[in-house]
């Protein structure tokens, strides 16, 4: 039987491929926002009982992951006219191919693990692994500093998905602390982005190569 959450998760998987093939930073931001929203909604489908507290928590997560974080990055780059290319180190076609391979590998690997709490959904594990690794891939394969931050956020989304689906025992207050940390981290990165743009007139990390050894 296909679990209802699998339908929206398949869209997340497609969005990874979309992100790998796009050359615009703005597209990447939209993908991140979309993934943020879906990832925060997943607990609605998977958890067995919903209390008022958990619904509130889901709403807060949704607001931060789906709206505030992407908006932060968007506002940081909007004012300054930055070249919006992502400046790939690995080309788009190769990235796309790597993305496909990644999804295959993630699906294969997750069938190997036998984890009781996620057995009903076919795609939960593969999606979590895919966006986690995809985030790392963007971090390494793009020279644009904004794309690197977005890669970091994608990775964080992946870890959140792993966390919410694997384990039900963490408290909301603790998860909220993690969320705040991530948010503050992204805000600091956004400030850094603006400074990099002002000082170097570019956000290509090739210019950030002066400190060595």
């Amino acid at each position, binding site marked *: 039987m296909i679990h209802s959450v699998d339908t929206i998760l398949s869209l997340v998987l497609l969005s990874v491929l979309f992100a790998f093939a796009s050359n615009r930073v703005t597209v990447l931001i939209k993908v991140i926002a979309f993934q943020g929203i879906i990832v925060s909604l997943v607990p609605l489908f998977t958890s067995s009982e919903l209390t008022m507290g958990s619904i509130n928590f889901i709403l807060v997560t949704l607001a931060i992951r789906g709206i505030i974080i992407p908006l932060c990055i968007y506002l940081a780059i909007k004012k300054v006219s930055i070249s919006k290319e992502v400046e790939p180190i690995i080309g788009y076609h190769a990235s796309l191919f790597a993305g496909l391979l990644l999804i295959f590998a993630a699906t294969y690997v997750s069938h190997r693990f036998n*984890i*009781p*709490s996620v057995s009903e959904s076919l795609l939960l594990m593969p999606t979590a692994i895919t966006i*986690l690794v995809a985030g*790392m891939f963007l*971090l390494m394969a793009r020279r644009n*500093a904004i794309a*690197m*931050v977005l890669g*970091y956020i994608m*990775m*964080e989304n992946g*870890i959140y998905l*792993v*966390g919410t689906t*694997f*384990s039900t*025992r*963490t408290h909301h207050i*603790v*998860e909220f*602390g*993690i969320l*705040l*940390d991530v948010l*503050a*981290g992204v805000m*600091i*990165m956004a400030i*850094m982005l603006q*400074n*990099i743009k002002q*000082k*170097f007139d570019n956000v290509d990390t090739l210019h*950030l190569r*002066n*400190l060595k*050894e």
Partner: protein
Amino acid sequence: MVEIVFLAPFLLGILSFFLPKETGRIFLVLTGAIHLFLSVNLWRKRPEALLPDYFSVTPEGLLSLIVISLLFFLISIYTAAYLEESKLESEKMFIGSMMLFLSTMTMVTLSDHIMVMWIAIEATTLASAPLIFTHRSKASLEATWKYVLICSVGIAMALLGTVLISLAMDVGQVNVPLSFSELSNAAKDLDPMWLKAGFVLILVGYGTKMGLAPMHTWLPDAHSEAPSPASALLSGVLLNCAYLGIFKTNKIMIAAGLNDFSGTILIVFGLMSILAAATFILKQTEYKRLLAYSSIENMGIIAFGTGIGGVGAYGAILCLIHHSLIKSSLFLTSGNILMGYGSRLIEKTGNLAKLMPKTLVAFLGGFAGISGFPPFGIFIGEMFIIVGAFRTGHYVAVVIFILSLCVIFAGFAKHVMKMSFENVEDDTDIQLEERASMIWPQYILLATSIVLFLWIPDTLFKTIIDAVSAVGGGF
């Protein structure tokens, strides 16, 4: 009430953003004094936490806390004078971030819940980022960028590791709170495969923050670009905080009987860091980066000692304490040199013996200490680690260890001798008067190390033994 120790500097730090510059400096020293008082009090009474699920007083936490507190107090005295001399633009930001940084590091030492530990360690990254960015130059921007991005990504790995440990509980059907102490008690029932995976990710994650090679790339940049008091804090205490995360996870591994696995990985990472430091120290051109690589070396030594276990683990804790004392004094001294000569390059500095005699004493003392000479504590620490390694039969590893230490000493000595006694080309004016408050903190730090070499108070010795016995250490 345990929580007040980190809440107090947090609130005072927020308050300091609203104070004028001169008051801010006094406020900083005052915060250091209050924190030291609270920590000593905590050490003596060892009370229960208000939120026992999340925080608790552990021996290893207490050790780190008292070191942090003492260092911060002395560094804050230095900082007050430093700020007067250096006339930073963003002084308020600097003072406020120092206090928030203190608060987050204290939280690391007191947290017992594995997720709260993660939150606190990530918060240290965020609180210290403005400190590295203080000079607002291109290089400091690059260093901060590297620091925030590399450490955030690294620490994200540790979060994943933490999640996997909670999965190890689910699979093993263990139902206890997610705290280090409860997990160590129930460690035997945890699923070993997921526990191992979690440990590796946590080691990589917190290891990034601790400066273990090959994840150390942010460390030399951040330490050389940050103002010297901030470098002293970063190297002296931040690295210890990250180590605490690894130490506590290692405790679970050892309670689960997986000490061979965790020990081997720690030894490998430790040796890699020592080797990396040995390679880079030889051809270093800047003295602050030299000190940063020496921190990487010492973190490697500590990881190595923890991996060996037994007396080695005891030695590692000694190295941890003494490295903090000595390295922070060296970084403060490097601040004097930087202000005196106006350059970070080794070739532009020379003849310290004549130009800055008081600074030279602190510099040479620190150098002797960090290279492992008696009467400084690192000597005993390293000796215990070497003895421990021979006892457990890690012959190859210990040979690499000793050879690298020799190479590092040779490289370090060459640069230090150049800076201390060789003449510089054109006679440089020294732009710094050697005031008491910029010299005595270093002397006190070094003296503490000597005192602890000669005589360890009973309560301190007992706490160290309590801490290491959980990781299979001791005599």
